[in-house]
């Protein structure tokens, strides 16, 4: 007997799971088709060798927002935000700085900078709050607005004008479109402080601190920080994806892994099902894609089913990944100069100055990997001892910048680059090299093929201003709708973008449910 299916979710990344959970809870019969053997997308666990595991390509996250937690009863299914951590920005001479929510401490830091940081964070948290109507709901259309679109804009306007107050409003409007380099240069003196903040603003993007739009990308990150402190993604039942999986299963949805969708089936502009790689056809009235927009439109739907200019726009989406990932299996605990063993549970940054970050980006602009990259380091096994054998550890490193395409090709240069990174960390942790048992190095090309994300992009597509809000991913497919009736986007390529927020999935579900035609 063929079961009736109302909605198919292509891909069970965390956004797909959030979206599907909402749909299933509202009574739709939901089927997930996930190409990989596990759910979770870029947050799912991977194995370095049999004994060493990395909980996710994404290794740090802010708590899921209260609304999603409550709506999907995630705590009941085991979710907890994890232990809050801080960021320590490393210096070769050991004069590290340590960041809390709005505090910063470390040697040789002036009171002026400490105060400026507090004030600055509070001010920008205010902006991030003012932007909330834009992040937590579908972005308004500017043409043919409906009532909800107008409300979103009205709330945004209200928040900016009255929530912020006149002074702050002017400041917000001034900084929103400029670059983080200029803003930080105005606010602070300490190079270490500026370096760390600049790195946060550009993480995951093909942008340097001087690139336009980097204040907005930083605001998007702050918007997630409003939910609480960062924690390390370390697997186990409390991790978001595992709780989501429980929630989804409890809601009656079914999940098929190892089921790669080859085609979205369209007739006369309307989606009616999908074809899997082995030729199997599954039909449903609503198809939701957690795959990135370019894969969705160019491969799964295909140019013949879409208008010419739309295809041109999608082809031109900027979204070449620029972050590589290094996973190390270690036979012991690395020792970092100037850090105690207990401090290693934090997020460690190598971004000593803002100029360092900008110089790192220069290489990427010209299709080379950064000779001196920005690194974001965690030791997940300090948070979950099942990830490595007793006394052993795993280290997880995000490496920025590592362009998707480099001159001369990755094949030739991958190993050299991995060694350079190990040597770079070695400057801060001299015993690291002697502890390495095994390693895994993933370029954006590897990430593309392993995680099925085109060009291995962190956000499934750059978060430039022209690819954000009502233009995300492109004009003609914003608001989670697509030109194909019955086909929606719910992944990081949709508004408000990447990270482990679940917001694209949440907003897409609202959109689908309010359209009322899902069943």
């Amino acid at each position, binding site marked *: 007997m063929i079961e009736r299916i109302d909605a198919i979710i292509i891909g069970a990344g965390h956004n797909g799971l959030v979206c599907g959970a909402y749909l299933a809870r509202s009574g739709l019969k939901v089927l997930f088709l996930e190409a990989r053997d596990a759910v979770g997308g870029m947050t799912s666990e991977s194995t370095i060798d049999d004994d060493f595991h990395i909980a996710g390509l994404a290794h740090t996250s802010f708590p899921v927002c209260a609304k999603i937690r409550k709506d999907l009863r995630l705590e009941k299914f085991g979710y907890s935000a994890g232990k809050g951590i801080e960021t320590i920005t490393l210096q070769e001479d050991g004069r590290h700085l340590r960041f809390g929510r709005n505090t910063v401490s470390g040697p040789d830091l002036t009171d002026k900078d400490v105060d400026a940081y507090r004030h600055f964070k509070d001010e920008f948290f205010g902006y991030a709050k003012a932007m909330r109507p834009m992040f937590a709901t579908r972005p308004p259309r500017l043409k043919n607005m409906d009532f909800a679109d107008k409300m979103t804009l009205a709330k945004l306007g209200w928040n900016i004008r009255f929530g912020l107050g006149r002074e702050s409003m002017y400041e917000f409007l001034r900084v929103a479109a400029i670059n983080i380099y200029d803003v930080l240069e105005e606010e602070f003196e300490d190079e270490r402080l500026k370096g760390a903040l600049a790195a946060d603003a550009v993480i995951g993007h093909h942008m340097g601190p001087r690139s336009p739009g980097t204040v907005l990308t930083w605001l998007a990150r702050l918007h997630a920080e409003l939910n609480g402190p960062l924690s390390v993604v370390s697997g186990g039942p409390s991790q978001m994806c595992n709780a989501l999986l429980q929630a989804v299963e409890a809601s009656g949805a079914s999940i098929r892994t190892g089921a790669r969708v080859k085609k979205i089936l*369209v*007739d*006369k*502009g309307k989606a009616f099902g999908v074809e899997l790689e082995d030729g199997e056809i599954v039909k449903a009235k609503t198809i939701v894609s957690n795959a990135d927009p370019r894969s969705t439109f*160019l491969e799964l739907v*295909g*140019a*013949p*089913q*879409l*208008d*010419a*200019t*739309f*295809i*041109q726009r999608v*082809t031109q989406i900027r979204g070449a990944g620029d972050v590589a990932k290094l996973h190390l299996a270690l036979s012991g605990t690395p020792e970092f100069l100037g850090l105690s063993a207990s401090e290693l549970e934090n997020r460690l940054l190598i971004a000593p100055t803002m100029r360092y970050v900008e110089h790192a980006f220069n290489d990427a602009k010209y299709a080379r990997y950064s000779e001196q990259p920005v690194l974001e380091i965690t030791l997940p096994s300090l948070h979950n001892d099942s990830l490595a054998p007793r006394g052993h550890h795993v280290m997880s490193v995000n490496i920025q910048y590592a362009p998707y395409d480099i001159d001369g090709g990755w094949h030739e240069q991958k190993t050299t680059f991995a060694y350079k990174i190990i040597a770079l960390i070695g400057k801060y942790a001299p015993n690291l090299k002697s502890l390495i048992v095994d390693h895994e190095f993933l370029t954006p090309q590897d990430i593309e093929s392993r995680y099925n994300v085109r060009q291995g992009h962190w956000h499934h597509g750059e978060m430039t201003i022209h690819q954000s809000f009502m233009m995300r991913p492109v004009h*003609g497919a914003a608001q989670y709708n697509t*030109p194909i009736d019955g086909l929606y986007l719910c992944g990081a390529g949709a508004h408000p973008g990447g990270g482990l927020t679940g917001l694209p999935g949440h907003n897409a579900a609202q959109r689908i449910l309010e359209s009322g035609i899902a069943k």
Partner: protein
Amino acid sequence: MSIPNDHFRQAIQHTPFHARLAALTQTEEWTVWNGCMAPRVLDKLSTEYFAVRSSCSVMDMSPMEKYRITGADAYRFLDRLLTRDLSALRPGRVTYVVWCNDEGKLIDDGTLFQFGDGDYRLCSQHHQFDWLMTSAMGFDVNIEVETHDVAALAVQGPTSYSVLTEAGIAGLEDLRPFGIANLSCQDFPVVVSRTGYTGDLGYEVWVSPENALPLWDAIFSVKSRYDVHAIGLSTLEMVRIEAGFIMPGFDFNTAESTVRANFDRSPYEVGLGWVVNLDKGQFTGRKALVAESKRPAKRRLTKITIEGNKPVGEAFIYNKKGGKLVGEIKCAVWSPILKANIALADIEYIGGALPKKLWARLDYQRELKWMSAWAECRPTNKPFYSPDHRSATPPSRL
């Protein structure tokens, strides 16, 4: 992909027939058509006009844009580009086509020739290479500009069949309207299609540029027995209106050149709904046209006959004498053969329908003095002029 790469050396190109046209012209009335020098009138408009309608006219069409479209996805590419259902098109046949942007607004019209499986030529009024390349994203298709690689003559009029046959092109008797034949003229190959823009019996003859002048000479060698006249664009403008053919960029603004909102036009709005097939599956603009087809019609480019014999130029149309402004004339001509003023007018519909009455306000000069008059207009759906001999196969030998 071949792009003519020396065209920039000369601002205005000469077509392969230029030597003959230059020798013939009495008026030196030239204009520029697609970057090529083209005659408006060579000697006398009325002589040229009656050549089309009562004997045989020859027009140099070489400046027409021509694209060769081949490759594994050629059909799928064209099917997604064009609004029309192409499934019935066969090798050796031609069809009239239009294409739209994503918003369902017309970019251009043209004729599509199918030579073989996966081998097509698209002819268009305006340059389309960039749009074709945009549309080719995601298709395995090869697009070559062959505008300057193929010379063409339109041989049109009641005696055109006889003239071409006498000129040494044998085998035209079986060629049906919209058919293509590979034939020869004397000792060189020609491709002949039974197509044209005049609404009369007629052919288009396609040759490689080096055979252009021999083709011309072969056709004009029958001049002692047949009345054969070279014609220019002014005649074409008259006869195409009589035939009810529209001209993108003149009768309406094409989508890619429109800046102001709603100044572009959909196929429905210019009366080309019959080339739109919403049931064939996806094509660019389909979604927008589906939506438009569900709304009441806002406007139509309408064929009208204007009473009286006052000269009609540009004019506004009202729903009654001195009434509400409902439209404007886009092109008009006094048809010598019909003895009537005929025009294409862009008319705003009222409540989804053509206004019951249409009145044109004509402003015209008599011996340099401006005058004004009201003339009633009658709409029609059919071509103004479509003689039976246009489609007879075989055509009669005259």
